[in-house]
């Protein structure tokens, strides 16, 4: 275990300077945020550098914070350096009005469907994705169900129609 979080931090700061923000280590996993224009550069840097080698994309997902003005939607990458057995978490945020983020599919094949899923759930538009369309939901769906403002429950159901079931006055 020669690769430490301190080393990754210093390398990132050395390369990107102030662009890297919110550096934290919750539960031992290094976590940081970068501007969304830099996401590919950061991923490429982490992938290429001999002493970093984050070449396994564990996970890619979206998250929605309606209260963060101008940075409502987030994309969270989990990367893994299998050789050194170190994981990191990397986030980019974007405004809900301009949900464009560059795709990571050129770097990781694994990102393909995970980005489609994130698009399906949150409407994050991955620029350059080879086949960005809904994956889990029906194509006709006209909203992005995981965004916080949309209800969970099936609104067509008529037998459970009070607010206890998410369909009453409150839901409307």
């Amino acid at each position, binding site marked *: 275990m020669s690769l430490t979080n301190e080393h990754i931090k210093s390398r990132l700061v050395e390369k990107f300077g102030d662009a890297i923000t919110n550096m934290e280590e*919750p*539960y031992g*996993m290094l*976590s940081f945020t970068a501007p969304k224009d830099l996401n590919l550069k950061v991923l490429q840097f982490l992938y290429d550098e001999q002493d970093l080698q984050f*070449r*396994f*994309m*564990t*996970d890619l*997902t979206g*998250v*929605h914070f309606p209260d963060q003005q101008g940075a409502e939607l987030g994309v*969270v990458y*989990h990367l893994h350096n*299998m050789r050194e*057995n170190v*994981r990191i*978490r990397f986030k980019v945020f974007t405004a809900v009005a301009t949900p464009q983020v560059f795709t990571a599919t050129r770097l*990781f*094949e*694994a990102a*393909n*469907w*995970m980005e489609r*899923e994130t698009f399906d*759930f949150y409407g994050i538009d991955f620029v350059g994705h*080879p*086949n960005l369309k*809904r*994956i*889990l*939901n*029906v194509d006709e769906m006209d909203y992005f*169900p*995981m965004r916080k403002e949309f209800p*969970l429950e099936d609104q067509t159901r008529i037998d459970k129609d009070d607010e206890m079931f*998410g369909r009453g006055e409150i839901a409307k």
Partner: protein
Amino acid sequence: MSEQQHINLPEGSIEKQTTTLNLGPTHPATHGVFQNIMELDGERVVSTVPTVGYIHRAFEKIAERRPYYQITPLTDRLNYCSSPINNIGWHLTVEKLLGIETPKRVDYLRVIIMELARIADHLICNSVIGVDSGAFTGFLYVMQYRELIYEIYEEVCGSRLTTNIGRIGGFERNFTPVAFQKIEKFLKEYPAVLKEFENLFNRNRIFMERTIGVGAITGERALNYGFTGPNLRATGVDYDVRISQPYSSYQDFDFSIPVGSTGDTYDRFLVRNGEMWQSLGIIRQAMDKLKTLPEDIFHADVPAYYLPDKEDVYNKMEALIYHFKIVMGETEILPGEVYHAVEGGNGELGYYLISDGGRAPYRLHFRRPCFIYYQAYPELVKGAMLSDAIICMSSLNLIAGELDA
């Protein structure tokens, strides 16, 4: 991208040399609900476009509306072939968030249950590879022994398939002596069956011809595609979460990781078989270790998160308060962000949890291994025969419930 290599010629065109075949979503060989639109040249697969989402159930959205302890039943229904691993993985995630230390005995009991689940999972997958290659016998043999595992689950938690096993902090009740007897019985009887199963398949000429070289992938490509679990190990990469990030005291056990070399269907089959032997060894060690530990510990001492005994609820004030708070979802959960992974039946099952201190998670994302590696399917079957595509799919151990979330 292989998804765009469809040859789009007008219907009935003379130049069109390939046949379009729609396989699924209800085709029996697709094990659940996968649709593949294949372009075939004779019997060779030119390209395939998988469609998923036929049982999308919105787990992640439901999880944002449920208190923590009510999420366990959801995790059951992810990979329902090995639901205890999902349950315990979720408990471990919450315990990591809350900083709960579990006693060794709880860890070992969990290891036993998780390894039984792993055996049940691999057993279904491997016997189904047999069914798809025309050997129904193996399936009937081992299904009988999966019932033994289900009986153990039943003895421990009262349920067979969707177990909802354990609680945050441990188990809901102690293992009965009957449960241990049943585990011992399984440990005694299963090796002979597994041996027989291997004898039926491993050096079976027909089976080997059907599987060797089918759906092969290199380690490098597999990593790029995000493979984990037995499918990755079949390519020769010895990555196992149980070793690389031990959870639930896996570091106390002595076991090895079976790896393959070519990453084809045959290697995947062998790796799973090898893992079943390792799992049996782990359960044996855990049973021996348990003998040295006090017998009455089955949960961590965390009254704020672990439901108290029903008798105490009626007789003790604090127990009643805790019971009320837990059931109403009023327990204090720390805000935080945690990723925890366990080695599921088919790969690294990750839980990415964001808590804002509320009664339900702010965001819970499941890293579902088969969703990620199923992307590689068009590449795996490109150029293969249609029948090989079928057997390749069953060897990937795709679980629709997990894949579609």
